[in-house]
């Protein structure tokens, strides 16, 4: 639930509606009220009967007023109430007379909050200029009705506000109607105020609302009100805003592109029957597969070439033989550029990522000049699901660092996903990944086959978490499969673990021989860091391997702080 609007309840919305029609005002108003309510509650305060003062609850005698609680509900400007009550033509006063008693508890709160508001704020809420006029002018009605009730326990009110809010979802009650009527009341005056700028649609947007408001038009006091809409926006009308509709028949300008020529046909299914295409693709994948030998992931490259092969077929005018022949020559070109990233490029990229966040422009400009920004982005998404990333994420919390879009807007919820993701990946208290996974990361980078394999099994060490004070957890959280176990790592705490792990590591290290050399230049890092980071648990082999990477990461972090 949006807590911001939950505060005021129906009557607060009514107050807002009286001052001006915009829901934005109402929402903002309710927010103020909610804040004040919290303040009251935290200070154990409440209002006296005249709402002139804040008192401790014990000062006044409390009276039973709890029955009204359920009517305090969230103001929800959704269509619900609009729909339910669009033909309710009772005037504001009538409604309040009829329903006022049920709203007392919430109105008391409102008034209490209003009482604490700076006068200018209150005035502006009610649509007055800052020239001080009687603020009570608007509140009078409410006060008259409520004075008897206002010795309710504020805590109770609060509670009712919350529960009412929940109930309100399913129960349409009278205050909703009230809100709606009131806001429709205000439409004409609002339109008066704003018509000079643009033709605003909203005030006149709906016939029956218009007629309603004609009947109910009452408040001249709002004439000078200019809606301050927080979230609600008007749909604007005018040549500034509407598109020019082409008139009637289609025509292309002379210099206009005939799109067809510029759109490149990559595949057309109509020329060959499906089975032939499948045979062709099989052939294509076989032949290209031959060329690539051990390195290729069968499935992965198959997919890539699929598209390529089809396009080749189109280019050859659907001559499968010719297409296959050409494919054979073009195998190299068909290879994905990602695999060509060198270790150095990877490292630079990671450094850049750490330094600049996902500002690929800066990364490219300062770190990876050999690649285009687009390539960096593409690489990023491949890299992100490699174990290299898992490792990287433990070194840095870069995922959280730079988010600074409007914090109040609910539109950016993915931020949470982002953050929880990075939080998950950096959940481990200190960053000691096992050697096996860091080497996996390396190997995957260079060799898709290994990477794919490790991807599946990488969660194995996750088992280790339970036994080894969660060290490896963060690393493996991102592993794609949850339940796969690797007996090898199950015995992490035993001595056998070290030996086993070591052998694994060495195997993997072999597969990534060229990466090792990259690490070698870091190998003179002090051994004490190893102690700190790995809590002395790792086997010499593994810690050495991974220690390089860790210290490497540290170095980067230092670098970054300089930036």
């Amino acid at each position, binding site marked *: 639930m*949006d807590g911001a*609007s939950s505060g005021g309840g129906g009557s607060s919305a009514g107050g807002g509606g009286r001052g001006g029609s915009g829901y934005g005002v109402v929402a903002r108003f309710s927010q103020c009220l909610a804040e004040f309510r919290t303040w009251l509650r935290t200070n154990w305060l409440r209002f006296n009967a005249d709402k002139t003062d804040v008192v401790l609850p014990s000062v006044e005698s409390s009276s039973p007023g709890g029955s009204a609680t359920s009517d305090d509900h969230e103001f929800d*400007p*959704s*269509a619900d109430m609009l*729909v339910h009550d669009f033909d309710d033509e009772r005037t504001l006063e009538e409604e309040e007379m009829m329903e006022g008693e049920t709203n007392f508890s919430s109105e008391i709160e409102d008034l209490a909050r209003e009482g604490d508001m700076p006068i200018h704020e209150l005035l502006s809420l009610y649509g007055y200029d800052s020239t001080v006029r009687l603020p009570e002018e608007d509140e009078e009605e409410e006060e008259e009705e409520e004075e008897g009730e206002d010795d309710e326990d504020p805590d109770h009110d609060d509670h009712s506000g919350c529960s009412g809010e929940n109930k309100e*979802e399913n129960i349409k009650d009278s205050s909703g109607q009230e809100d709606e009527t009131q806001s429709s009341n205000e439409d004409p005056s609002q339109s008066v105020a704003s018509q000079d700028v643009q033709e605003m*649609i909203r005030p006149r*947007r709906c016939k029956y609302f218009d007629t309603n408001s004609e009947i109910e038009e009452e408040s001249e006091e709002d004439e000078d009100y200019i809606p301050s809409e*927080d*979230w*609600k*926006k008007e*749909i604007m*009308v005018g040549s500034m805003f*509407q*598109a*020019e509709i082409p*008139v*009637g*028949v*289609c*025509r*292309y*300008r*002379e210099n206009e592109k005939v*799109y067809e020529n510029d*759109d490149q*046909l990559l*595949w*057309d*299914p109509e020329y060959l029957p499906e089975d032939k*295409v499948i045979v062709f693709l099989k052939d294509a994948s076989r032949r290209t597969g031959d060329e690539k030998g051990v390195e290729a992931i069968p*499935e992965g490259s198959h*997919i890539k070439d*699929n*598209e390529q092969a*089809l396009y080749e077929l189109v280019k050859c005018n659907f001559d499968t033989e010719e297409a296959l022949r050409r494919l054979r020559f073009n195998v190299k070109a068909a290879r994905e550029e990602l695999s060509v990233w060198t270790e150095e490029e990877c490292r630079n990229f990671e450094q850049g990522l750490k330094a600049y*966040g*996902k*500002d690929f422009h800066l990364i*490219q400009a300062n770190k990876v000049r050999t690649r285009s*920004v687009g390539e960096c*982005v*593409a690489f990023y998404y*491949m890299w992100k699901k490699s174990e290299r990333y898992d490792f990287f994420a433990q070194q840095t919390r870069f995922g959280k660092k730079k988010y600074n*879009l*409007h914090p109040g807007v*609910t*539109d*950016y*919820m*993915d*931020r*949470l*996903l982002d953050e929880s993701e990075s939080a998950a990946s950096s959940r481990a208290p200190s960053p000691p990944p096992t050697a096996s996974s860091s080497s996996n990361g390396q190997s995957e980078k260079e060799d898709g086959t290994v990477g794919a394999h490790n*991807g599946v099994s990488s969660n194995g060490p996750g088992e280790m978490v339970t036994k080894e004070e969660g060290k490896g957890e963060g690393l493996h959280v991102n*592993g*794609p*499969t949850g339940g796969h176990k690797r007996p090898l790592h199950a015995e992490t705490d035993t001595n056998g673990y070290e030996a086993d792990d070591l052998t694994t590591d060495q195997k993997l290290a072999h597969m990534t021989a060229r990466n090792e050399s990259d690490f070698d230049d870091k190998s003179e890092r002090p051994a004490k860091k190893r102690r700190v980071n790995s809590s002395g648990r790792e086997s010499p082999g593994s810690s050495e391997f991974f220690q390089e990477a860790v210290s490497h990461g540290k170095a980067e972090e230092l670098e970054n702080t300089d930036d």
Partner: protein
Amino acid sequence: MVHTQGTRRKVCYYYDQDVGNYNYGQGHPMKPHGIRMTHNLLLSYSLDQKMEIYRPHKTSAEEMTKYHSNDYIKFLCSIRPDNMPKYSKQMQRFSVGEDCPVFDGLFEFCQLSTGGAVASAVKLNKQQTDIAVSWAGNLHHAKKSEASGFCYGNDILLVILELLKCHQRVLYIDIDIQIGDGIEEAFYTTDQVMTVSFHKYGEYFQGTGDLRDIGAGKGRYYAVNYPLRDGIDDEYYDAIFKPVMSKVMEMFQPSAVVLQCGLDSLSGNWLDCFNLTIKGHAKCVELVKSFNLPMLMLGGGGYTTCNVARCWTYETAVALDTEIPNELPYNNYFKYFGPDFKLLISPSNMTNQNTNEYLEKIKQWFFENLRMLPHAPGTQMQVIPEDAIPKESGDEDEEDPDKRISICPSDKHIACEEEFSDSDEEGEGGRKNSSNFKKVKRIKTQDEKEKEPEEKKERRRS
């Protein structure tokens, strides 16, 4: 009429592999990369073999100014991350910088996404396909001279403008959780475009989309906003989508449909808003497709890339009438689909705050409004005599004199031969031969359009 056998229809798919290579920057939820993942998943399902695939042209700046203001487009062209300081004033003016950040290749990205979308519209206009798909198109918030909500250039708008060249009435359906406010506003005063948007409403991003926003002027009743509350699920969504769309189809009788398949209405995609599953979302596609109109499917919001890929893949399969297995095939981004590696997602257990009663009331309210529409066939009947009018002169006269327009060769004219033409015909004959489509029907003239509001008024009074 002819198109009764099955629903298999020809599909064209527009994709540029570069489109995934843009990034809005650190922490930004908009991830064009989802489009690439979608493509990859499509490939791994071998769906690509079943449809025509195009790499679209890049839209020129000039094309974009068909809707957007010149200033704005010029600004978009020139702004780069490294020259932002120079443009700080303009950035403010055009609302670029915060939720619409400047990133490398910004304009190119707009060009690509718009290119695909507009190309598909042209394809539909030429009647060379039944369904066109361009997942890269998604920028429905952008305003004439303003970026908004991650959107810079409003490709959907250009698409609709393009379609309007050959279609008298275009229906725009937006099942993104956000309202398609850019579109709605742009066509707020016309009766040729009906915008139907199902969205979460309230204290929420764009702040428009009240159900009482029904259009203005001639466009009154041609904007439909269905405000929904949190937690709506497949069943409820279907329960409103179907009747409303059926009614819209009946009353408005569009000759082309643009469906914006924004995915932030999916369960788990957004913070606890809607609770649709992929199936429920795709059901909308299915329904719209069942109307057998030229249909354009565009992408939209949706910020969990793996679900974006899942859903749009599934919906492409729906468009192709192909069943695909729930088990995801291996693909380049396989790991993103963990931990279950399934195609479909399950709904969460969030509370559906939409009561039947609530939805029903709104539905009734729409039906009331839709009844205000002049019945579409009536306008059609009036249209036909207008064929006699010499097309060239008629058009040119109505044109804005400021616009450079030259008389184009007649074979570049493309027109809807028959509004409800059946698409099978195209497949056989000269599908590629645009000269076959020279026949031009004048659809509507100023006079008639003026008549319509009058009719409407009469109806309203009665």
